[in-house]
């Protein structure tokens, strides 16, 4: 019995670890899509900021400067996305696709040119990374049955970016539904004209949303390369930006359901490692691919309207043009 419990705690613990970048990217996407900007480029931003963070941390020796650089890269990419989709009224999907390729190409190219390690950045250690934080009394409580393991393994021992991700959820819910900014943000994604008529700048509001998006996804990318791993490697975002996008749709663009969905997708990810080689009665071994595919399948089933309806913000993807 105790064995199963420890197992469960371990799976939940890796669920949390794997869900963090998803949560950050998903909330990032939430801000921009709520403001009416479709962001297919989350994947590229995750990858770009992971590289920026790892490269900077490797050169300067500081994880905090790495974080700054990671967010900086995401801000730069958001700026391109903003110019293309807000100022030039270009196609937001195309811009996002371009950003994804840009990140995939540039990170490997620059990584190889700068560090000559086949696209990897140097191994990071010590202050170059965000290490685990032990919450008060975690070691003392570790031996207390049931809650001891829960507290010291599952809740304590993550890094500061992980806690930031969890704090970002209630903050987002509060900003979105209880502040004036949040009301305007939601309005600009549904009916930008109404805001424009009220004398509020649609452009400015959408750029503000893109900035928040960049900060969140930048933290997510930084988490990938210098908190979860000890350095950058080729294409390390590995589709997480797309999974986050799927999670956002699955959560119907709401913060708390977004957290739940990201944890679910993180759990599937953790399970995939756990179930490798495990034989089940009658079924035999469950193929890894069957679990890998679940987040995508679930999102498709939702999108098809078989379990509830996912309705995107009305103005999302449509550039706003003032009438003359």
């Amino acid at each position, binding site marked *: 019995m105790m064995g199963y419990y420890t197992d469960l705690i371990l799976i939940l613990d890796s669920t949390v670890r794997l869900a963090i970048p998803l949560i950050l990217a998903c909330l990032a996407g939430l801000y921009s899509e709520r403001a009416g900007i479709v962001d297919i480029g989350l994947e590229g931003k995750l990858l770009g900021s992971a590289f920026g963070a790892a490269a900077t941390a490797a050169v300067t020796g500081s994880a905090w400067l790495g974080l700054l650089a990671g967010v900086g890269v995401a801000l730069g990419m958001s700026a391109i996305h903003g110019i293309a989709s807000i100022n030039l009224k270009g196609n937001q999907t195309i811009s996002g696709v371009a950003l994804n390729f840009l990140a995939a190409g540039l990170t490997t190219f620059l990584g190889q040119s700068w560090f000559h390690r086949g696209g990897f950045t140097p191994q990071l250690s010590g202050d170059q990374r965000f290490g685990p934080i032990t919450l008060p009394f975690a070691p003392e409580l570790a031996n207390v049955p049931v809650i001891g393991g829960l507290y010291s393994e599952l809740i304590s021992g993550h890094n500061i970016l992980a806690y930031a991700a969890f704090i970002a959820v209630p903050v987002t819910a509060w900003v979105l539904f209880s502040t004036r900014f949040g009301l305007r943000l939601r309005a600009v994604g549904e009916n930008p004209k109404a805001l424009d008529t009220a004398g509020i700048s649609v452009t400015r509001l959408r750029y503000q949303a893109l900035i928040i998006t960049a900060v969140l996804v930048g933290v997510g990318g930084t988490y990938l390369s210098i908190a979860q791993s000890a350095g950058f490697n080729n294409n390390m975002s590995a589709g997480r930006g797309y999974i986050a996008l799927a999670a956002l749709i699955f959560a119907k663009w709401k913060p708390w359901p977004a957290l739940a969905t990201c944890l679910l997708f993180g759990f599937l990810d953790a399970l995939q490692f756990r179930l490798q080689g495990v034989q089940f009665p009658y079924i035999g071994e469950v193929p890894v691919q069957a679990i890998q595919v679940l987040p*995508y399948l679930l999102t498709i089933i939702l999108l098809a309207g078989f379990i509830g309806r996912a309705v995107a913000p009305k103005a999302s993807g449509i550039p706003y043009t003032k009438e003359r």
Partner: protein
Amino acid sequence: MSARVPLPRWVDIALLPLLNVVLAFLIGGIVVVMVGQNPLEAVGIMLYGAFGYGSGFGYTLYYTTDFIFAGLAVSLAYHAGLFNIGPEGQAYVAGLGVILVALGLNGQPWFLTVPAMVVAGAVFGAAWAFIPGYLQAKRGSHIVITTILFNFIAVSMMGYIISKILKPANVGSDESAPIDAVSRVPQLRLFWELFKNSPVNISFFLALIALVAVYWLIWHSKFGFAMRALGHNPTAARYAGISNAKVIMITMALAGALAGMVAVNNVGGVQGRLILNFVSGAGFVGVAVAFMGKGHPIGVALSALLFGALYQGGQELAFSMPGITREMIVTIQALVILFTGAMGDMLRPPLERIFGPRAQASAGDA
């Protein structure tokens, strides 16, 4: 924002896209300079690698073949207002169709197997694209998201099929049994000495036929009219008696069939077996090719050739200038998509000032 000023036709269809491509390459060049390499030397090596000798040119045409099919798969759907980001997955799944008939007919001469591979690739590719088409048409699920998700589903599904079902027991790596040499798509080196040691095969001519066929379909057929009507104005199309749902589903199936031809070129013509992730990005290049080519078959052909040359030349570059890796090509691809697709109208205002009717009129006054 000022209203859009009509530009002379040649400026709109030739100069503006050309300037956008030049801009993309300029920025690519700046990146190369930033890492301390000489971009002009790089271009020279790439041009030589792509066109300078027979087998290099053969490789260029082989990549071009892939990119024409993928580019057409994106272009065709785009005329109906559908952004198909799925050629990567559609080509991958088509590989299954190609290998199944090829192994089924293994040992038969190529003039029997090749048509069968073409049909099977088309059917499997079409089926994989039809599902997102159906979901868009009947359930309102956004095609961009569903085609992206279907790319991922294809990766998992094909990974399982190749490594667990198709892989023969005595083979170490994840790949299917090989197709006999006589049953493969014939390579052009059999007929032309020029192309020795290169993989270009008769799929290249299939690609040229596809370009003409797509041109005819879009601009000279009844269905093409319905497609374009849907792309321009779905409401008007519906009032004109066009069944939008039907057009969406057929268009996506056709796009998937075109993407499926990538598998004929690759699985049937070059590898002679189905290997893991054989598409390796060709489907995504199709997105760049389609936007650069403005969705027109002539544009698609030219930009596919450009990307074919970039891919082959980039290979050569990686040997000659170790400071520049192949990923520089992916960067260029991204910049091309960005400048010809998303920021395609950035240079329009200055061009309007030079070529617009007002400029013409004032020139007439003087």
